[in-house]
């Protein structure tokens, strides 16, 4: 057991829980406060919150691990899609969805396409986000088992439940404000680690040469082109199709704040990938990849090698912070889907706000238990699991959502066909594995696009009312 690291971790986790409890009363005062922090978050807090939600364990551990194991171009491909997430989301959907006045992605599908599409979308959100808990839990288990010196399985259970507790207690208020701290920790931690690596090797050029000497394929494109393209697509679309990231957008005070938050969060994310490059080169130069049981552990080895125990403790807290904030955002999306979009919509329309919030609480606990159970025996590398979730959501939601916003003629039948067809095609490709790793959305997303267009054109157009609503998504903010 690493005592100093454990103490720092414990202080951190207790601090975060206190913040969660502090905001509990505020959060439970109304449904709007619980889900979107009363829409009153400013652009700097919003930027860190968006950044922390996106900079998941995968951005840090997974990207660095895959950059060392599969060559640095693989990490660059990660950032190639991931840094573009926020601009791409802003360009195509965020202003329009905000103008539509809805609070969740399934709510948008209901407004635009009707009840059946909403139900299917809730099902996809719940499945996708629950599976997305798995890489987060896996990463927290790896860090926890190393720091605490306990079994991986125990670490997954303890940290998973701890993380759920404060997310469930505080809703978006707690998540947004703890994200501010977590976002800062990730950024500063990565910066310090990168600086230490560069200092020890005497600059970037010497560092890359050291990495190449220890790992001759470090600079190579080692995977088929399809893998890089698939990874790029899955991450590029992540902001559009990930319900957790989209929900962040609504926590901003107004459209201008939302856009500025996204722009600054993009810069923070860019910096993390630049620091990640340096950290991965430091990891490759250690030449220990083949000795590790799990390749995702390389990041932990870099921290251990280059940092003092105090700094390492802070860094592990930063890593756990990234995991927790992402997992929290996912849990919130799952519970919003079930409690608001299914229970209140279809089961008990008269349910009080308190009842809906409580059901959301229970759903969070259940979802995290399922995530923990799967994470005990993770099916793949973190990077691949995250790629799957992005690919699955893109293949089912991507085009029905974008066409719903930009094409008046898209209708309910088209959206249903696109969603189900894309999702099923994606699952078939994952199970049968006919192509390179994470290349599934290259086939499944165009299938969804084609189905949405062809089925919409083959059936009757949406009503005049819906068509004029689509127009209203694009009217200037002042006019709404």
């Amino acid at each position: 057991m690493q005592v100093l690291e454990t103490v720092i971790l414990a202080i951190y986790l207790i601090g975060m829980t206190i913040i969660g409890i502090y905001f509990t009363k505020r959060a439970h005062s109304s449904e709007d406060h619980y889900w979107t922090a009363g829409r009153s978050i400013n652009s700097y807090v919003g930027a860190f919150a968006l950044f922390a939600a996106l900079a998941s364990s995968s951005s840090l551990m997974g990207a660095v691990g895959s950059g060392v194991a599969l060559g640095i171009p693989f990490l660059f491909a990660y950032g190639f899609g991931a840094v573009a997430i926020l601009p791409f989301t802003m360009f195509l959907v965020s202003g329009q969805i905000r103008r539509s006045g809805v609070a969740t992605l399934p709510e948008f599908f209901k407004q635009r396409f009707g009840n059946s599409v909403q139900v299917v979308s809730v099902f996809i959100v719940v499945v996708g986000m629950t599976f997305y808990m798995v890489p987060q839990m896996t990463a927290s288990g790896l860090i926890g088992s190393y720091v605490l010196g306990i079994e991986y399985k125990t670490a997954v259970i303890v940290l998973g439940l701890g993380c759920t507790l404060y997310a469930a207690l505080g809703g978006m208020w707690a998540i947004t404000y703890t994200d501010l701290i977590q976002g800062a920790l990730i950024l500063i931690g990565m910066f310090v680690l990168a600086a230490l690596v560069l200092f020890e090797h005497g600059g970037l050029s010497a560092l890359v040469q050291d990495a190449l000497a220890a790992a001759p394929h470090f600079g190579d494109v080692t995977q088929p082109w399809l893998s890089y393209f698939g990874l790029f697509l899955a991450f590029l679309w992540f902001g559009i199709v990930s319900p957790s990231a989209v929900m962040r957008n609504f926590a901003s005070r107004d459209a201008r704040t939302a856009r500025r938050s996204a722009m600054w969060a993009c810069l923070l994310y860019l910096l993390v990938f630049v620091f990640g490059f340096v950290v991965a080169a430091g990891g490759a130069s250690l030449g220990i990849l083949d000795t590790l049981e799990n390749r995702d552990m390389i990041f932990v080895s870099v921290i251990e090698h280059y940092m003092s125990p105090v700094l390492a403790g802070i860094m592990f807290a930063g890593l756990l912070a990234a995991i927790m904030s992402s997992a929290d955002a996912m849990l919130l999306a799952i519970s919003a889907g079930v409690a608001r979009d299914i229970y209140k919509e279809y089961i008990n329309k008269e349910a009080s706000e308190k009842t809906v919030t409580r059901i959301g609480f229970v759903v969070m606990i259940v979802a995290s238990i399922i995530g923990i159970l799967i994470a005990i025996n993770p099916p793949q590398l973190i990077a691949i699991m995250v790629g799957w979730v992005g690919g699955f959501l893109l293949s089912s939601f991507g085009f029905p959502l974008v066409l719903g916003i930009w094409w008046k003629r898209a209708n309910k039948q088209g959206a249903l066909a696109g969603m189900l067809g894309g999702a099923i095609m994606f699952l078939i490709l994952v199970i049968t594995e006919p192509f390179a790793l994470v290349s599934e959305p290259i086939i499944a997303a165009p299938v969804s696009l084609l189905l949405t267009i062809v089925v919409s054109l083959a059936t009757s157009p949406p009503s005049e009312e819906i068509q004029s609503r689509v127009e209203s998504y694009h009217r200037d903010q002042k006019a709404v």
Partner: protein
Amino acid sequence: MKSNSRIKDPGIILTIVLVFVSLFVLIWWPTDIYLMGISLAGWLMFSTYIIWFLLAAIYVLWIEKKDENNE
């Protein structure tokens, strides 16, 4: 905004720019050219990071200017 001017929407224009930059990288894909021991295909992907941020900044300023003009 009228529907027939949607092609002139800043979001659509910048999406087209983003797609062109991505296509340039993915079609050229120079895996056999090396700079500092790292494949140029990798460096090209790395250099897009700054382009993506610049596109985000251009979008934010463009929309804010548009809003001011509408006031």
